[in-house]
């Protein structure tokens, strides 16, 4: 895969993937700001506010109608956490000229629309109109409150909060119900100004051979800013291991057990590849040790999976189980980690975990959205590996590297959400 990185004026970078093998073109702006409890909500409200309408298309209906006319062009915006960064993404995806009915090139119209949302929002006296703002604030608040509806994700979030009560791991990139409630239209408008003038900004452009018109359009927009300097952050990952435990009760049918492990391997350490492979072998793929032993051999659960956050150095192992089986699952999860530490796994198991990872990441290369998700994580350290280069690095990981990664992995926090009125575990 061809990837070009271009430095743009005003501290911005463009990742250009020129291949034209897709049916759609995709342009995305990735804006990263330090993730902090106090201003997370102000940034989190922006994706919805900015993409619902703009000055040129002043109602949601008008904007949506325009997108329909542009062959169903799709605007996506969202916010998530990447390490210590709160990352806002604004993208537009639209049909390539070859697939439109009259061979129309939509690139100029669509990129202008995306930039217009960021730079020409429908403001009234420099603030968001109260009705728009209240609507978006309500949506954000309800999304936050609805996190409890998905018990599996809810339990994982609780465990993350136990793992890192003092660091970004416990900060919800959507804010908290309290900070969202307290938000004002003036604060949201100020957050937009700060986002444009201080965020680390990466643009991704896929499916366009010549990006000069896009870079010029971006330059023209940012040249109008009075000030712009991208913020930087010092890496700050704590490796102290504690033994936190929390149990909550809820009216649920099945307990959700989440074991939070600290792994003393984080980006941009070279050993991250080994930790990824260790996690895949442990519980990250269908042939993993946890899948085989906890689910298939002992029938203790439907899922028991491990996922690695390479920015925070954390592995979460989560499982849905009957409460009486919680000790058995904990014991087996730990036993399989011990097995990896001591090299007690077969070459076939290791190669299967490795092949799974390589094929998974290579498959992301099959859609513009997949490629975007693959590269956005790499913008944090501006260290870019194509899927093929990733495969090469993964193939170089040795059995000893995997054992070492497991030796650097220690249980830190245990969270259990269990049905009410059951005997304590």
């Amino acid at each position, binding site marked *: 895969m061809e990837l070009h990185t271009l430095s743009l004026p005003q501290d911005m970078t463009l990742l250009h993937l020129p291949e034209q093998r897709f*049916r759609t073109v995709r342009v995305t702006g990735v804006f990263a700001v330090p993730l902090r409890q106090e201003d997370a909500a102000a940034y989190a409200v922006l994706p919805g506010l900015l993409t619902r309408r703009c000055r040129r298309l002043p109602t949601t209906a008008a904007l949506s109608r325009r997108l329909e006319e542009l062959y*169903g062009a799709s605007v996506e915006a969202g916010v998530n956490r990447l390490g210590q960064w709160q990352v806002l993404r604004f993208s537009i995806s639209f*049909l390539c000229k070859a697939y439109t*009915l009259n061979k129309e090139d939509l690139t100029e119209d669509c990129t202008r629309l995306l930039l217009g949302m960021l730079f020409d929002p429908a403001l009234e006296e420099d603030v968001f109109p109260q009705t728009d703002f209240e609507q978006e604030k309500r949506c954000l608040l309800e999304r936050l409150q609805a996190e*409890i509806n998905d018990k599996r994700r809810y339990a994982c979030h609780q465990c993350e909060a136990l793992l890192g009560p003092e660091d970004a791991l416990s900060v919800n990139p959507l804010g908290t119900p309290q900070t969202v409630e307290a938000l004002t239209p003036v604060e949201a408008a100020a957050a937009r100004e700060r986002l444009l003038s201080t965020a680390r900004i990466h643009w991704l452009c896929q499916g366009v051979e010549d990006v000069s018109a896009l870079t010029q359009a971006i330059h023209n927009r940012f040249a109008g800013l009075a000030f712009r300097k991208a913020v930087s952050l010092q890496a700050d990952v704590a490796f102290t291991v504690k033994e936190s435990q929390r149990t909550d009760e809820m009216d649920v049918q099945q307990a959700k057990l989440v074991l939070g492990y600290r792994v003393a391997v984080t980006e941009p350490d070279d050993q991250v590849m080994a930790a990824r492979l260790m996690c895949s072998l442990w519980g990250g793929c269908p*042939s993993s040790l946890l899948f085989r032993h906890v689910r298939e051999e002992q*029938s203790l659960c*439907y899922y028991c999976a491990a996922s690695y956050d390479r920015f925070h150095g954390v592995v979460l192992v989560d499982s849905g189980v009957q409460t009486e089986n919680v000790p058995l699952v904990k014991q087996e999860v730990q036993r399989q980690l011990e097995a990896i530490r001591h090299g007690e796994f077969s070459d076939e198991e290791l190669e299967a975990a490795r*092949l*799974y990872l390589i094929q998974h990441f290579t498959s992301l290369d099959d859609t513009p959205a997949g490629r975007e998700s693959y590269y956005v994580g790499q913008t944090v350290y501006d260290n870019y590996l194509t899927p093929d280069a990733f495969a090469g690095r993964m193939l170089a990981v040795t059995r000893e590297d995997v054992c070492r990664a497991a030796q650097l992995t220690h249980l830190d926090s245990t969270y259990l959400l269990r049905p009410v009125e059951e005997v304590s575990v």
Partner: protein
Amino acid sequence: MMQAFTHPLLGDTIYTGEHPSGLTIFVWPRPTARSTYAVFATRYGSVHNSLPTPEGGSETVPAGIAHFLEHKLFESEDGDAFARFANTGASANAYTSFDRTAYLFQATENVLPSLDILLDFVQHPYFTEETVQKEQGIIGQEIRMCEDSPGRLLLFNLLRGLYHTHSVRVEIAGTVESIADITPDLLYRCYNQYYNLHNMALVVAGPVTPESVWEAADRLLKPAAPLALPAMRLDEPDTVCCAYTEAVMPVSAPLFYVGFKEPQRALAAQDAAGALVLLELLAGDSSPLYTQLMQQALINDQFSYEYFNGPGYGIWLFGGESAEPERVRQLLCERVEELQQNGIDAAAFEAVRRGVYGRLVSELEEPSACAELLLDHWVSGMQPLAPLDALAALTPEGLHKQLCERIQTHRCSLSVVRPE
């Protein structure tokens, strides 16, 4: 051999043919893709809940048996299929829905060996008392997990509200109690009934050739005897069973599904295309209803809609989170009646149709989306990509007729899950 068909708008060539074994095969070559996606499926899902008896009658099988069979097929006397796929690096999976069971893999390397594994393991059932009992534990946990999902409860309460007798009312995985009645003998009987190659299709999309797929079928498939499937009992009345259902769960706010029960009809490509356009005109972001619901704080950005159908059922579904679900239903019904009365605005129709076309084409990037779409069309008895082509033939008048025939506000049910 296979017949080639080149789609005039996409420019892609799709190959299709009936293999001498009885299996229908589709191949959608995507030479520039990195991965290949293959799905081997049978028209056997949770709604097919009966088996013929030797006396010529039929017996009802335990709820969840199609899904149980899906889990068990991965197991053979020599180990499980996941272990075999692990050697090729393919990512394998399976799913059971109302109208089908599908086994699949995605791979960037070792595609043909993975295809051999797929075709092989699905044809070699192996069930014992011991392995069935073990699976009851795993699936029991899957059922418990689903019982904690408000979305699932909402959907099945709605289906039970819309349908009096149709088996679409029944949970796909069954219940802990119903799967306790499953035996190896029952599994073999269901397998022999529904996993006949004449009732199955293989769809492969990615950087593959039709010849290589056909040759794999030649190697691994044996001709199946012609099939006579029992006809589904379709004595479902057109009325709804219950206009409102409510449940309580630990959720943050009331969640709802409004469903309209479609009168029984054989779905044509024109209907499938019509559903996509109608949904957008009724409740899409550019519709007056969406603006009204958002402005009145009756929905949030989680609002969604879809049409789904299968043998003997068709449902128009609108769902989200709302403090006043009854009011959402009322406004939705009013919007339907308004469009039925006033007809469909030609300019809005043209814009939405163009948008639907663009989204349909945009979704056909990755091999998995291409293959699953072809499978959908096969299960529904349509020609490959027929709904995409049918879009061009839609007119505002034809769509208005569809709206009047297919959505009737007196055939509506509301399902709500409220916080404790």
